[in-house]
């Protein structure tokens, strides 16, 4: 569903992403771990078509993001680190608006149900978003992904800044989507969450994907050790 083929991005002399190759199939959750500036967000942005690739291809459902941008976006949903919605509209109105832009028509009842299923309290559905917490906005994002019937989900540090309860709820929702066959590519700093929700974990450093492991094949401590080892190497190189 999601595929990067020799995907690279550079800004002048700086190589933000170098020859990335990865593939995320339906029902898989690929978590990208790495320090700030490792290239996680650049990868997500390249898949979203927000920035053009220097070389290589990003494909969604076999559609090249660069040349078939509009068509490829039909299959994806995107939740950034801090999902921003229109503060003067209610959660329901925001969901209705973004669904409409994506060409999806849902009844008011369907949208209300989607928001409830995504964990948003009923009492907040008709309240303006300016009264929402970050976790509540992320839930609207999940509801949007569901409403759109997205086959792939691109998440850029979605649990960053969420309290443990909200983070847990979010992971539960991701789990549900995974079971429904959604392919997910998630950039995160959270090793525990990556191990908990991911099927595959990639560790990035300086724009390169250094390791890819199956979440089932490593324990949390092994993952932590591998991660720290990779980071130490980075530190050593920098010194």
């Amino acid at each position: 569903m999601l595929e990067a083929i020799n995907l690279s991005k550079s800004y002048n002399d700086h190589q933000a992403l170098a020859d990335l190759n990865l593939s995320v199939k339906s029902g898989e959750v690929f978590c990208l771990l790495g320090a700030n500036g490792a290239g996680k967000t650049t990868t997500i942005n390249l898949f979203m078509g927000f920035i053009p690739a220097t070389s290589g291809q990003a494909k969604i459902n076999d559609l090249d993001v660069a040349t078939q941008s509009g068509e490829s976006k039909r299959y994806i949903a995107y939740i950034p680190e801090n999902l921003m919605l229109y503060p003067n509209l209610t959660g329901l109105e925001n969901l209705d608006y973004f669904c409409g832009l994506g060409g999806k028509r849902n009844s008011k009842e369907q949208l209300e149900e989607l928001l409830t299923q995504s964990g948003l309290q009923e009492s907040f559905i008709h309240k303006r978003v300016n009264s929402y917490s970050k976790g509540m906005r992320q839930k609207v994002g999940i509801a949007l992904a569901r409403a759109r019937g997205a086959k792939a989900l691109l998440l850029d540090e979605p649990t960053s800044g969420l309290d443990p309860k909200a983070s847990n709820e979010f992971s539960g929702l991701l789990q549900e989507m995974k079971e429904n066959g959604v392919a997910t590519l998630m950039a995160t700093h959270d090793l525990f969450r990556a191990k908990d929700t991911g099927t595959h974990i990639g560790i990035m450093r300086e724009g390169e994907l250094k390791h890819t492991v199956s979440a089932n094949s490593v324990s949390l401590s092994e993952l932590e050790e591998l991660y720290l080892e990779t980071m130490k190497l980075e530190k050593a190189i920098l010194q």
Partner: protein
Amino acid sequence: MIKKIALKEFKENLREGRFRVSVIIVLLLLIMAAWLSYDYYASVQQQHSAAKENARNIWVSQDDKNPHSAAHYGTYAFKPKYPLALIDPGVDKYSGISIFLEAHNRNESQYMAAADQTGLARFGDLTPDFILLFIIPLLIILVAYNSFTREKEQGTLQLLKSQGLSLWKLTLGKWGGIFLPVLIITTGLFVIATIFLSGLSDFGQLSYIALIIMFLVYLCYYAIIINISLVVSALTKQSGISLVILLAVWILICLAMPKASSNLADTIYPYPSRQAFATEVEKDKKAGLDGHNPWSQAAKDFERETLEEYGVDSLSQLPFNFDGYRMQKGEEHEAQVYFKHYTKLKETYKQQTKVYQASALLSPFLPARFLSMALARTDYGTHWDFADAAENYRLELQRALNTDFAENSSYGDWAYRADKKLWKDIPDFSYIPPTTAEVMQNNWSSFVLLFLWLFASFGGLKLTTHKI
């Protein structure tokens, strides 16, 4: 999809206090401006009707008298007020409301309302056209300045882009969301104006076509302002910067350019001073036949030519009163002099108009302003037309009086008295302003400039869309 975006923008705006307060202020100003305009015009119309009736009564009430005495006694031509002047009073306050019609002289219009005002009038009047031309564009800027910058600042732009939405459709949706409230306010104003004006018989027949065209001109003007605002909002990253740029644009196109073009036009193509103009006219008049001076060389030449033409030896043998005949010929000479000098003035006016039109390439305000005044029949073009009509009436009046004198008396009979019935037989002055078709024909270049702005600004918006 465009409709969905437009309705969402409209809904968001309605929920913003800034928008609601701005709209309420604009509506209050519009109501106040409409009321003040109505009050002013009702008062002017009443005075106009009374003065017109009075002037006619004075003319027809003259006793038996020499027609040339009646010609010097004179009468007035009053410029009628038209319904759309309530929306755009144009230059009415500066162009005068009546012209005194007398023998030998083409007088300037007089009784300018501006002359009766205090120095505070320099601040301008609160009229509907002021709201339509200055305040609504400001409202548009206040609504549109952060159309794209807000999306960038609050981070919703990325989510929008992730929906696979065409940026041009997003732009058109935003355009519609801003245009919708402007359309509602403008339509409301014009519908109320139509209902209100159609019931005012005192203000003459309302031209619905002119009203509709004026409405469309304003909508075009607003569409251009929306386009400019969206272009700036798309190109800037911060709302504050966008607002500052747009306010500077508003000052430039609505305030600075009109004044600069006026000064430029006056510098390049200056009108002669009133004194210089009068001196030139007097000089040319003296060079020809003066109906009152039978001893001048021109009068003697004309006398000789007339005797030769009729094959008689003396003026008393002519089949008409030569004094009346000479008066008429003198009048015709003076009319030619006035025609020559007023044609020069008109040429200057046309040249100045060209400067304004060239300036309109830098300001969409100018073509909108000119078209609005022209359609309301309150522009200088209509004033010139009225002044020409008044002059033609004056010449016909003089011809009728001199002809009566020449045909009904004998040479040297200055004691001749025309029957007072003659005054009634001469019809009152009646002025028909240019039709809407004529107005459009006379102002085609302003229409072209306005459409040029409309298409160019839409083109600019389309190009800018890729940079959002």
